[in-house]
């Protein structure tokens, strides 16, 4: 046993040696789900941030130093994330981009805050993340309450009266469902159904039958795309023609593959703009570069928002003329106004939330394309 422990200790020791590197670069951390259920998002985040760093370094880096991106895998899991955060703090990063899931981000927040390292999350939309008064936490993603507001508004504009709300009991989906529910009730909409499905199953006919019994004008599903695809597919099998509206977690090309084009036709969802719908010149140029390098578009807007987080950090370091966490955070809070991000202008409010409206409404057409709607 003793021997085996020594081997382990030695292996851990090697880890330290590797971590102690040179200090003539500015290190920016990226915490992303490189493995696990959200690995495709994490891969996209990494590709975008690394390409941006490459381009910035070609322009001379920041503060006259080259930028080094240090990526750590959070596995899409809170406990792995807290270890990833510990690793990044010990590697001397100036600031951190990431991550995707809200509960995953939450597990890392306190660690960065206590270490005085600014963190800009890209996919974490849970409201409470910015309600804790953390000085060093920001996000380029919108908040769930904004999406909830947008959902209520869209249902209003489309003229639906009786609404069924279905979530999947995850933190994100439940939060969004609660938010939309409260807003629509206030406006006098009739909420005829509010319940959760079990994610990860195949057969949702039981739920659909129950939903149909409630006879809604529209169903708001706040969960993720795999379930949304199955719901649409099985809904079509039942010959039920009610429209579905989904949240941004259903913004994924696989939705149409799972549902089939015919069943997905007419499905609405809310989302920040798709990468290809970004209309600034900056975004168009960058996406062209990205496509040239990786021969594909970024997997989702969330990866692009990681790129925005990275750009904001670089701007913060340049603006504060320092790689010190406190200075960067101070600059981001006060001085960064209408910074030109890939996804539009970026400013942070006192809580670290992004100012301005980000959500758009999309509809799936007969070819399975996601078409931006003007409502």
């Amino acid at each position, binding site marked *: 046993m003793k021997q085996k422990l020594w081997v382990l200790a030695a292996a851990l020791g090697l880890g330290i040696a590797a971590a102690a590197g040179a200090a003539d670069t500015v290190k920016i951390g990226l915490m992303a789900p490189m493995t696990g259920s959200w690995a495709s998002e994490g891969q996209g985040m990494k590709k975008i941030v690394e390409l941006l760093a490459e381009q910035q370094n070609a322009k001379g880096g920041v503060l006259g130093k080259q930028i080094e991106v240090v990526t750590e895998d959070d596995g899409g899991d809170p406990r792995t994330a807290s270890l990833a955060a510990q690793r990044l703090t010990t590697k001397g990063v100036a600031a951190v981009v990431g991550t995707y899931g809200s509960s995953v981000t939450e597990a890392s927040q306190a660690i960065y805050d206590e270490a005085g390292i600014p963190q800009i999350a890209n996919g974490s939309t849970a409201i409470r993340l910015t309600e804790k008064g953390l000085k060093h936490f920001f996000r380029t993603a919108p908040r769930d309450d904004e999406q909830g507001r947008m959902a209520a508004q869209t249902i209003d504009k489309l003229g639906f009266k009786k609404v069924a709300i279905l979530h999947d009991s995850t933190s994100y989906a439940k939060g969004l469902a609660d938010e939309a529910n409260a807003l629509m009730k206030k406006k006098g909409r009739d909420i005829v159904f509010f319940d959760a499905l*079990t994610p990860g199953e195949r057969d949702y006919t*039981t739920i659909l*039958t*129950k939903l149909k019994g409630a006879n809604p004008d529209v169903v708001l599903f706040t969960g993720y795309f795999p379930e949304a695809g199955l719901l649409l597919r099985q809904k079509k*099998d039942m010959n039920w023609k009610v429209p579905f509206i989904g949240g941004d977690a259903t913004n994924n090309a*696989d939705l149409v593959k799972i549902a089939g084009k015919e069943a997905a036709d007419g499905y609405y969802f809310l989302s920040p703009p798709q990468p290809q719908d970004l209309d600034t010149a900056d975004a168009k140029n960058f996406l062209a570069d990205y496509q040239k390098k990786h021969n594909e578009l970024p997997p989702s807007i969330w990866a692009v928002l990681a790129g925005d987080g990275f750009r904001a950090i670089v701007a913060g370091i340049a603006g504060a003329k320092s790689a010190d966490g406190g200075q960067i955070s101070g600059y981001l809070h006060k001085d960064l106004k209408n910074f030109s991000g890939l996804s539009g202008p970026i400013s942070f409010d006192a809580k670290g939330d992004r100012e301005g409206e980000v959500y758009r409404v999309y509809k799936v057409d007969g070819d399975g394309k996601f078409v931006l709607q003007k409502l």
Partner: protein
Amino acid sequence: MEEFFQQLTNGLAVGGIYALIALGYTMVYGVLKLINFAHGDLFTYGAYLGLTLLTSLALTDRLGFAAGVLVLALMVMGLVAVLGALLERAAYRPLRQSPRLSAVVSALGASIFLQNTLMLIYGARFQVYPDNILPAATLNIFGLYLPLMRVLIVLASVLMMVALYLFIQKTKIGTAIRAAAIDQDAARLMGIDVNRVIMLVFLVGPALGGIAGLMVGLYYGQINFTMGWVYGMKAFTAAILGGIGNIPGAMVGGLLLGVIEALGAAYISLAWKDAIAFCVLILILIVRPTGLLGERVADKV
């Protein structure tokens, strides 16, 4: 009332799949007294192999829908059966004389291993069957919507179960399986090659699990490498519900569990659906550990 019957048919369709998988559990348990935890993953392999064969060989394009799917089903059954036999050889046979815990742990290890092999090969993302394979038609009977494919799935399941039942009850090989299930030593004395019986059980059970996987893939379209776990747990519950080791029991248990789930979700709570299924399992084990159709056997002291 209409909604009640609709939910009933929903439950039966899901239950048919459970029953088909439950047969594999119940056969292995009958002969080896082992919970083959990896059985649910063999089901997943059926779904993945089906997808790969379907897309790479373009069977339905070449042979048409019916013949294509039939050939595909036979191929999947064959491959998964071989996989099942290999599993028995590698993970269970060396432990035949070991304490029960060893075999259970090995089974669990095999399950984790199979599942993650699949993940490394295909990736962690959902895989999607092409959506234009099956004819989409929905029957409307007295106001009940019955998608044609669901009806076919239940029919195919029941057909296979009946065939298996007749095979076990009426053929000589089936008698050997039943004998080995009652007492392996006695069966051996009667000149039955118990190793071959066990091998056979590990061919037939996985073949049925594999075809269930293919049906799920074809009908639901979306598969993923962890799905065998949930289906496996449910199917095992079904096997216990019906009386483990008992083939009609697995059929009854599967269909019943599907219906309990559907009605529980409809009239008790959607969000607690799986908890309801597990409560049924625990209650059965407390109240009637032999299941609905099982017989009570005294423990040897």
